[in-house]
């Protein structure tokens, strides 16, 4: 197991290297002056008399390898350029907004996985009954609902129609309180910070604001996992070892849930890496719809404003997240399936 982890960890820098080469490669499509904005540390540096200095400092008119080396050096020191759309260095914005997106993504993952696995199991065990047909329709409809349509419809119906839940991360009065510093936000995770500060009103307010975005993400992403869980469990239930276990007289639940479902989880885990990438797509769209101040809405508005350093910084961060998520998936995979550990 240890060797397996080390082998997988070895992949991490390689993939990040590949992505960074692509990023610097893409920058070559721009003029040196445009490229310089990806390296500035502040608004002042973007003024014309300073641009030349940046071009010289980072070798922006030299060849690709020099540029890559200097870019990587700066990136390793945490300098990813200055974002015009948020008027601060990219790294600062990322640090500020990452907790909000992480909170949203984690909260969405729980219903996605739970709903996917439990509804999928129920559909497979009670094949061709009401629950199976229901989940089938639910899956096809959920899978066909684009995030931006479903999210907007939810917003119009609940928020526009009945004033429920609300947009943003917290209500305005809390925004003011946080801005004035009367509520501490040490972790950046609103739910956690509210509990730490002992403010239950803020906790529930933040929770209510998460209901619609989380629902949007969960329905669209969960449908896919549910279908895979169903078909893979049906597959497992038809295997010989399940019949053997039943013939031995083991209780039905033990056979279904211990023998069959554990094996059926393997394709689901494989899929969850892809599903996570899909979820990140959804985060960009969902945050934009609900005005949620996370990384996704920032990246989307940066893209519209052609704020290149911001978009590239976001891409690099996404790459890191994806690699780490795939690593976790692999580890989970190895934990569930011993054959992978020893191969």
């Amino acid at each position: 197991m240890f060797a397996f982890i080390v082998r997988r960890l070895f992949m991490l820098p390689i993939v990040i290297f590949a992505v960074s080469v692509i990023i610097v490669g893409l920058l070559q499509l721009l003029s040196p002056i445009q490229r310089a904005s990806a390296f500035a540390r502040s608004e002042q540096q973007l003024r014309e008399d300073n641009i030349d200095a940046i071009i010289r400092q980072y070798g922006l008119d030299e060849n690709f390898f020099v540029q890559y080396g200097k870019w990587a050096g700066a990136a390793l020191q945490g300098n990813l350029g200055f974002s015009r759309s948020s008027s601060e260095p990219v790294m600062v914005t990322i640090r500020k907004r990452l907790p909000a997106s992480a909170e949203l993504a984690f909260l969405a993952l729980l219903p996605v996985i739970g709903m996917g696995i439990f509804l999928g199991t129920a559909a497979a065990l009670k094949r061709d009954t009401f629950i199976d047909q229901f989940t089938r329709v639910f899956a096809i409809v959920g899978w066909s609902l684009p995030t931006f349509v479903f999210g907007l419809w939810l917003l119009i119906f609940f928020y526009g129609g009945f004033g429920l839940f609300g947009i943003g991360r917290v209500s305005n009065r809390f925004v003011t309180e946080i801005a004035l510093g009367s509520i501490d936000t040490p972790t950046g995770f609103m739910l956690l910070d509210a509990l730490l500060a002992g403010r239950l009103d803020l906790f529930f307010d933040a929770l209510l604001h998460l209901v619609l975005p989380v629902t949007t993400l969960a329905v669209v992403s969960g449908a896919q996992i549910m279908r895979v869980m169903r078909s893979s469990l049906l597959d497992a239930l038809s295997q010989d070892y399940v019949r053997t276990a039943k013939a031995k007289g083991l209780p039905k639940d033990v056979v279904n849930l211990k023998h069959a479902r554990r094996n059926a989880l393997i394709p689901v885990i494989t899929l969850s890496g892809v599903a996570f990438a899909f979820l990140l797509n959804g985060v960009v769209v969902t945050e934009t719809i609900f005005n949620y101040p996370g990384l996704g809405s920032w990246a989307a508005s940066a893209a519209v404003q052609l704020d290149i350093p911001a978009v590239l910084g976001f891409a690099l961060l996404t790459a890191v997240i994806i690699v780490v998520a795939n690593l976790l998936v692999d580890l989970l995979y190895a934990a569930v399936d011993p054959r992978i550990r020893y191969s």
Partner: protein
Amino acid sequence: MDTTLSNVDNEPQAAASSTKGWYNSKTFKRFRRNPLALVGAVILIFYVVVAAFAPQLTAGRLGRSCIRDLQANRDARATLEQDLVNPLHPIFWRAIAWSPASCFQVPRQSFIEVPTAPSREYPLGLTGGSYDIYYGIIWGARSAFYIGVLVTGISLALGIIVGGSAGFFGGWLDNILMRFTDTVYAFPNLILAMVFATIFGPSLQNVMIAIALVGWPSYARILRGDILRVRAQDFVDGARALGAKSPRLFWKHVLPNALGSLIVVASLDIGAVVLTAAALSFLGIGADIGFADWGQMINFARSWIQGPPGRPFAYWYVSFYPGLAIVLFVLGWNLLGDAFRDVNDPYSNN
């Protein structure tokens, strides 16, 4: 010697016989019996018809520059509107086969900022800024197919180049190409397309290129696998023994026999491509404002989430109709795609 040569040049017999009588083939029979697949097919045929006849369906609503561009070289005895819906007139067919770019621009009926409710004149209403929703949806279907088919085609070409060389040449090239493919494949496609589109600059063409640059990895993977399978077959060895060189071996013997499943997968991806384009357009990345495109129509609705006081759902039509158009479109593709997976899945016999 002569007979052997001609044998080698023929396609393998299995491939030839499967194309004969496809209507009665087991695969297609199973497909026909799947009611959901039929629903999907009907939905998509409906969209194809709407897209094809978009000029006729919007004959009375065309914008001024669209009318001007359509009228090139026309003798004006009847109004354009009458000629457009007259199948005997050449302009009827010319408008279907080719429509000028200006027709994809949704005409503005006025400059009123507030949406206008559906009426007899504007059956689906007007958005804020008075863009005709009906026009946008009809021409949006046309631009959806345009974007979907073109982008999938480019992606397919990229996938064939990468997957083809990886599978055919193998060795270190295979290794490098496939690791690169895996990296792009793992990346969230919308985010990567967003990055490309930002660097290339905002325009519909650039967004299409960006989506194509994101979509190829799955094709490269499928093709590589199929090529490895085909390459190992006897007829390839036979051709090589007869002295066929690599390019001929690849283009004449290996690729045609490996493309089958790839073409099916790629054509079923058109829906997903349209969805990505619409999502980008929703975020404000892509075509100019007013271009007939469902994503942008839905984006218009973002400013009209709440009605005036007392009538909360007053502007429902601004988000409902474009949303419905895209949901049905994606549903059609998904139903069809699901059915194809079922048909090809040996476990789904019972």
